[in-house]
């Protein structure tokens, strides 16, 4: 039977089992919206800004193992979506963004609401398509979903001109997809895996460094088993938190610029480093020269060959899906008669215990001023460590990463690679919609929240009862911190004057707002907020405005060149 391009588009989404689509209508997508209206399998969430649609789809994808889907119109719809797409790209999040385009006969004429969507998004998508004929929509969307989810995941944009969405074509959704130029290697080379296993067994000071790849590949179980079998310390990147249980005694905390002393010293001083689904980025290993100045053997497992030996030369590279590779590595280790060297490990742990003794995450609580770290610790306590914590970008993000101890994967949702302020609220919306009964906390700052605050309206429309934990220090805190450390205390435009009354603002949107000004009120306020299961509660915590994030490895420095709180 012949269907219109718009009908085909919606049918494809239904075939893919898409539950939610986040979007905003406009001229070029009117036919698609018309078809959305006529069905109820795919639920559409009307956001208030296209950036939020993409972040919401992103949060939905991160907290499940599904592909997030967003729908935007041409021109400004697409340009507004770009920040969201780039955010998903940098963190390898599976996503399909459908954008409307001006009719094919208008393309290139600078038509109303025309932008070259494929051109504008090219550097920040895994792949993109312009569909020029309705008969190609089904096969293109099939490819888009496949590309988004397989290999190293990422966002895929499908641009559909208005006339194509109204053109008729025969519909059949392909059962399989074959792209001759795209064959990601998912199974690791067994020879390399055996070689790596042997190196790990012989290591005197082994260290496991695991990133977002563990989460994306759903390999937390295998990772945990491997780390326990090796008896090695394990650190997680910002993207990898929850990939290994934070409460486990072998967990040494997050590493990197604001990582624990023991994690960073362990990275610097280990003799065999196993990197799993992580990419040695600048915020993680600091200065490359400094990192390479000490000898150690590196084993790198990653699905993307281009991530291997990009910044750091490695000794053993294993290209494959983390989950498959770890399963194979466990089988090799379990069948080996050799066990890790106990005496050496004992010495290594003695050294780690010494570094742990620095107690690098300690902070001085106050009875006068609310310490942001205390808010996060209390949040952890009140939610019993079982919430989905979605963060924005800045100091609060680092505190949430450091003090909310994640024991499960997909519970920590943040923009790690791009560092997108404004990500938190819409992403939390996507998380809550994916997990209706779950506890979802959006940890944010007064800077970040204002970048997408309009989504409070969307939350009202769809009854999304997230809890917003705003650590309001009246400063763009991370900028202020760098200005204090590196720019002679010249706080150039990092002070937020004329902030709104967030309580009233929340109320204006139909939600509940609570102002918290005293440390003694923190716990009570959090309890009250989380007791209101059906309400969105905006908690405005007036925190200590001068608090800094420690430890800190300044940009360009090495992992052992760390500033601890007590150094100052």
């Amino acid at each position: 039977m012949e269907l219109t391009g718009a009908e085909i588009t919606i049918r494809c989404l239904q075939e893919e089992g898409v539950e939610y689509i986040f979007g905003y209508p406009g001229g070029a997508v009117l036919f698609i919206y018309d078809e959305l209206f006529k069905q109820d399998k795919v639920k559409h969430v009307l956001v208030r800004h296209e950036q939020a649609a993409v972040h919401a789809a992103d949060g939905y994808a991160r907290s499940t193992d599904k592909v997030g889907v967003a729908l935007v119109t041409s021109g400004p719809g697409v340009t507004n979506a770009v920040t969201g797409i780039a955010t998903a790209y940098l963190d390898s999040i599976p996503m399909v963004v459908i954008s409307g385009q001006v009719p094919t006969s208008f393309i290139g004429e600078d038509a109303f609401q025309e932008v070259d969507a494929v051109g504008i998004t090219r550097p920040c998508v895994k792949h993109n398509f312009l569909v020029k004929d309705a008969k190609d929509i089904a096969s293109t969307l099939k490819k888009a979903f496949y590309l988004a989810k397989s290999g190293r995941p990422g966002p895929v944009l499908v641009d559909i001109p208005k006339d194509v969405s109204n053109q008729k074509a025969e519909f059949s959704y392909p059962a399989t997809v074959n792209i001759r130029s795209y064959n990601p290697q998912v199974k690791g080379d067994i020879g390399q895996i055996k070689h790596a296993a042997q190196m790990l067994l012989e290591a005197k000071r082994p260290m496991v460094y695991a990133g977002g790849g563990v989460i994306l590949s759903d390999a937390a179980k295998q990772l945990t088993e491997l780390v326990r079998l090796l008896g090695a310390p394990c650190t997680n990147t910002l993207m990898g938190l929850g990939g290994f249980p934070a409460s486990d005694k072998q967990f040494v905390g997050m590493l990197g610029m604001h990582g624990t002393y023991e994690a960073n010293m362990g990275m610097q001083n280990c003799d065999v480093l196993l990197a799993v689904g992580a990419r040695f980025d600048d915020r993680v290993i600091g200065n490359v020269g400094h990192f390479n100045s000490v000898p150690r053997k590196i084993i790198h497992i990653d699905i993307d060959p281009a991530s291997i030996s990009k910044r750091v030369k490695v000794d053993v590279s294993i290209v494959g899906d983390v989950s498959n590779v770890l399963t194979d590595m466990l089988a090799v280790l379990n069948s080996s008669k050799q066990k890790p060297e106990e005496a050496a490990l004992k010495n290594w742990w003695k050294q780690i215990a010494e570094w742990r003794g620095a107690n690098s995450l300690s902070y001085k609580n106050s009875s006068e001023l609310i310490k942001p770290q205390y808010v996060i610790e209390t949040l952890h306590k009140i939610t019993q460590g079982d919430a989905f914590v979605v963060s924005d970008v800045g100091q609060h993000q680092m505190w949430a990463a450091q003090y909310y101890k994640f024991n499960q994967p997909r519970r920590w949702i943040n923009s790690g690679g791009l560092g997108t302020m404004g990500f938190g609220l819409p992403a939390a919306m996507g998380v809550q919609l994916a997990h209706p009964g779950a506890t979802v906390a959006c940890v944010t700052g007064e800077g970040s929240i204002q970048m997408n605050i309009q989504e409070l309206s969307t939350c009202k429309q769809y009854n999304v009862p997230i809890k917003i934990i705003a650590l309001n220090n009246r400063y763009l805190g991370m900028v202020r911190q760098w200005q204090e450390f590196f720019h002679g205390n010249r706080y150039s435009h990092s002070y937020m004057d004329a902030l709104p009354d967030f309580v009233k603002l929340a109320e204006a949107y139909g939600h509940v707002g609570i102002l918290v000004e005293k440390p003694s009120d923190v716990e009570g306020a959090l309890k009250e907020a989380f007791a209101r299961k059906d309400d969105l509660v905006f908690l405005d915590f007036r925190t200590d405005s001068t608090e800094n994030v420690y430890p800190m490895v300044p940009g360009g420095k090495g992992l052992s060149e760390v500033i601890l709180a007590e150094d100052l």
Partner: protein
Amino acid sequence: MRHIISLLMENEAGALSRVAGLFSARGYNIESLNVAPTEDPTLSRMTIVTSGSDEVIEQINKQLNKLVDVVTVMDLTDGDHIERELMLVKVHAVGDAREELKRIADIFRGRIIDVSDKSYTIELTGAGSKLDSFLLAIDHSLILETVRSGASGIGRGERILKL
């Protein structure tokens, strides 16, 4: 070091810009780049001449392979290969220079493919260095126009880049 990388990619709109965009976004050098369809009309073959450290070249190869439109990549520099470039040079050819230019073109096995009373257009193929030498051999002030295709390359013998 200079590398000549050959690749097959889908003959689709936008594929070229993905490759070009990759080089500019990641700050890789392009000395020359050429592309045209192959005997299989669904495939285009591209030859890129670039330079960089071993690490950079490794990344270029990996990043090219990562592009969904790129079917297969071969660094020709890794083995025996032949490299050719086409050059068309239009020169001012009057008086004594007319004979001299013809003689030099013959030495370089160039062909004169267009003649006017004031000019010759000389066609020359060879390795890039041969074309450079020809330009050095003639009087620079006589050159009116130079068109170079950039290098094309192919592996020797059984070294074949095909699907």
